[in-house]
């Protein structure tokens, strides 16, 4: 695309009125809403497709190991044993999950495990809108079954004194953000 600009007039060169245009632009910018999010007090809400931390549901899982197979870096560890349950006079073999661990520190959040999961709704999913995953120790990022299911209950960093719960409840959520 070729753009043809207005020809420079003599008055543009000798009268400095262009400067006023610049000043007008910056002044208009002064009163516009700012893009800054004051992080610990305000949080950006990610979009629906955002891949955050794992969430796992023990009840939905059928222990088929498909997610572990799908994982390209093999960080899902699953142990299963068979149990025999009596149901209506019939003996039935049921798979029981012993271990479901994810080494999140090595995860690249490709979401292939979620795609591979055959249950409906998925028993492992990543669209949790969480991005606060930083820890002080890398071993803290090895999550077992219980931790994967209940990490939502752990205390959240607010940047405020711990007893100051009133302000935490009144947190402002900012929608939109990265699209």
């Amino acid at each position, binding site marked *: 695309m070729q*753009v*043809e600009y207005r020809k420079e007039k003599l008055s543009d060169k000798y009268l400095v009125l262009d400067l006023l245009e*610049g*000043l007008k*632009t910056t002044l208009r910018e002064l009163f516009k809403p700012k*893009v800054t999010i004051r992080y610990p007090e305000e949080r950006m809400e990610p979009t629906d497709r955002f891949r955050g931390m794992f969430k796992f549901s023990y009840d939905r899982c059928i222990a088929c190991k498909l997610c572990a197979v799908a994982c390209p870096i093999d960080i899902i560890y699953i142990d299963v044993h068979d149990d025999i349950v009596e149901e209506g006079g019939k003996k039935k073999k049921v798979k029981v999950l012993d271990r479901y661990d994810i080494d999140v520190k090595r995860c690249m959040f490709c979401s292939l495990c979620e795609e591979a999961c055959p249950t409906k709704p998925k028993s492992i999913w990543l669209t949790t809108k969480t991005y606060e995953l930083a820890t002080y120790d890398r071993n803290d990022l090895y999550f077992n079954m219980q931790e994967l299911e209940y990490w939502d209950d752990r205390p959240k960093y607010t940047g405020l004194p711990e007893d100051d719960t009133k302000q935490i409840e009144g947190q402002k959520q900012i929608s939109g953000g990265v699209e």
Partner: protein
Amino acid sequence: MNHAFSHYLFWPLIKFLVAFVIVQGLVAAMNWIERRLLGLFQARLGPNRVGYKGLLQIIADPVKFLLKEDIVPASAEKVAYFLGPMLPLIPAFIVFCLIPFGPPPTFTVTRVNVGLLLILALTSTGVYGIILGGWASNNKYSLMGGLRSAAQMVSYEVPFGLSIVGVLMICGSLDLVTIVRYQEINAWNFLPQIVACFIFLVSMNAENNRTPFDLPEAESELVAGYHTEYSAMKFAFFMLAEFSMMIVNSCLIVTLFFGGWTLGMFGIGLTTDVLKGMGMFGGILGTLIFVTKVMLFMLMYVWFRATFPRFRFDQLMDLGWKWMIPLALGNIVVTGLFILAGQERLLYWIGIGAIGLAALYLFKPKRAESRKVIHAS
């Protein structure tokens, strides 16, 4: 207490101290105001963490400067290195003796009949500290910054002085109080002297090494310019001197072109006599008007900084020598001709015309054909 002591020493000292404390408070506040406002101009928030809306930053910054380690380069010229930050402070502080903050005689520290000349003489010595600091740091970037500053300040001292001449010709006095008294009876000087006012505004920015003329501290070329090697309190002194000089120049432009402490023209409105009639309250009101005007110009500095990109050095010199000085000289000639013809009031139409032209340019309806797009093929 005899009369001479109280009249020439005691009261001026008290008044100076009060003015000094207020001005230094403004300087400290300016540091925060500039950073905050610059942030708001640039679609961010600026410092807002300390205290309400970041107001405690005014205290936090000096405390940080005081507690920081004071590093002196091993190869620095010790005496000159220490003198560098001190020298620009002295004229910047003394000048506040000479500026009339409110209606005389209560709100002026001293009334000197060549006050303007004295202020010009004092402010132009500020460059010594910068050169000395740049040279004593024994660092080529500092030296470059110092030299640039010297060249720039000397160049812009000329249009700075010449732009004032027009005002002096109209008012017929170097006494700042007389100049203000003239402006309240006639129009404020920016109307008949709009060209001089513009030159003064530009030179004022150049004198203070502010963006668009901040070449001495151009961080993309010379690390930080003349204060590269300075840290802690010495660096703070440089900043203090810079902001003080900004306030001095804002005071000057308000006094010379925008009617000082008055808020009226042609003898109508809040003139000196009206303010004096109100007693002490009137005096404080006048001072408040003056400070408000000064702060508006301080905000203008920030606004300019947020808007204009930096000049190249040859462009800076071109602007100074090829445009500003001839323009200032032409302004003197034109003003002289009008005064000779006894038609000073006709000069107002120049100012009204120029302001009208600028307003017309700013608020004219946008033409859709300002940019034509030609698609390929």
